[in-house]
């Protein structure tokens, strides 16, 4: 479903992503790991349209993404979350999800101005749908609180569900467990499996190896912008290159 063909991204003299190729299978949970500064987040930015690769191409469901803008890529069916939580903090929790629903709605600017009947109906349906998504992560009881007042872990979940609201085929999660306590991590584990059941493919960056090894079908390892290894969690755990890269870092 997602095919990255030999992409390279340079910032001036620095090569942040160096000839990386990977392919995701539909409906799988995939991990992207690597020591700090390996280029993982940059790689996410490359796929999601923040950067355009200097070389190579990114193909998503048969559509070439090079040069497409972030919002266009979202509309094709790819959502993402951020390492640093990127919620609309002053909006309510349910409003955040409604923003996520945005690309699914049809009525435009002038029907919003005129408040046409169909537009109102659509608005109602969107709110209903947003509440359903909140149920998905257990945040319905906090629907009207400002997003900024949620705990760190809850904010992570809200960001994930905001990404899911646009019914993506692929969601990129950048350190979803960061800042979560162990109970929240267990909940996250359950939610990630529920997302997979919806048929959404996941690609996630995560430093919590226990979570990562337990849940992923396949793992890619980046180091210094290059792909170091790929394989099942067991293969990765026993890969001498990967062990060396992690030990060498410390």
């Amino acid at each position, binding site marked *: 479903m997602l095919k990255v063909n030999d992409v390279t991204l340079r910032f001036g003299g620095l090569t942040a992503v160096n000839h990386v190729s990977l392919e995701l299978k539909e409906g799988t949970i995939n991990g992207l790991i690597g020591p700090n500064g390996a280029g993982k987040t940059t790689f996410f930015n490359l796929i999601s349209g923040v950067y355009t690769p200097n070389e190579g191409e990114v193909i998503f469901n048969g559509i070439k993404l090079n040069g497409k803008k972030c919002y266009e890529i979202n509309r094709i069916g790819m*959502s993402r979350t951020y390492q640093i939580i990127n919620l609309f903090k002053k*909006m309510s929790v349910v409003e955040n999800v409604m923003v996520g629903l945005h690309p699914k709605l049809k009525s435009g600017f002038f029907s919003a101005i005129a408040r046409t009947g169909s537009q109102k109906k659509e608005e109602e349906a969107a709110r209903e749908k947003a509440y359903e998504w909140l149920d998905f992560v257990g945040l319905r009881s906090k629907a009207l609180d400002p997003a900024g007042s949620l705990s760190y872990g809850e904010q992570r979940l809200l960001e994930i569900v905001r990404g899911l609201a*646009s019914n993506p085929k692929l969601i990129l999660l950048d350190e979803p467990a960061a800042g979560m306590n162990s109970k929240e991590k267990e909940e996250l584990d359950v939610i990630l499996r529920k997302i997979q059941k919806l048929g959404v493919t996941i690609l996630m960056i995560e430093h919590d190896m226990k979570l990562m090894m337990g849940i992923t079908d396949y793992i890619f390892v980046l180091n210094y912008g290059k792909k170091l290894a790929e394989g099942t969690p067991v293969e990765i755990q026993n890969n001498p290159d990967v062990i060396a890269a992690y030990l060498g870092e410390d």
Partner: protein
Amino acid sequence: MLIQVLISGLVIGCVYGLIALGYSLIYKASGLMSFAQGDMLTLGAFLGYMFYGQLKLPFVVSLVCVMLCMFGLGQLLERGIIRVLLKNNVLPVYIVLATIAISYIIQNAAMMIWGTQTLTFPPIFGSSLVELFGVKVQPEAIFCIIMSVICMLFLHVFMKYTRFGTAMRAAAMDPTAARACGINTSFSTGVTWGLSAGVAALGGMLLGPIYGVFTMLGAIIGRKGFSSAVIGGFGNMYGAMLGGILLGLIETGTSAYVSSAYKDMISYSILLIFLFVKPTGIFNEQAITE
């Protein structure tokens, strides 16, 4: 006397509020200030004079035409000038300066087209006065207050309860996250500038019949509208309207009970006091500090 002061204070205050609304919307969406807001009001008044006074179109039709024209012009300004400057990495201060340049260009162009005299905007409701709480007032004054309040409520509903308004707020709050949610942020920024111009033009249409139409109509109102936005809490829609009404009342009250010679001195002193004591404005808007 009190009623009369209240009404004329509300009239000008509501118009300050409409201008302030535009400042706040633009600031939220682009992080910039457009000092052409006042001139959008002037243009709105002139276009209104043209559609309603000269072409003799019904008032409502003229109003819609004017607001659509100005909506387009506002978007054009953003797309044609502001966005290009931003893309070229011009410093924000210079972009603000560019809006001042645009302001003078509009004033001069208006002078070339419509001349220097004050034009009489034909009355909307005939020439008779209506009686309200025992005082005779121009019906246009009441109309101005009502329309401004409606406009405010309308914007409130639009921003808060429609998916488009929600998207616009999202784009203003956090453009990166908004783009990741599938929102075309540059489109919504354009719409914001258009809305601001449209709202200012409405102010011009409402004020025209009361003050007459002339090229400098919006120049002072623009500055006062900016002050109102700051007093209310810069970037806050509700603060903008409240700040405008407050400033209008203070100003009119000073003219009536003290002396009109002091009116600007007192209203700008109040602005200064706000800057010292409560720079986040009545609505405690944190946009400035963030």
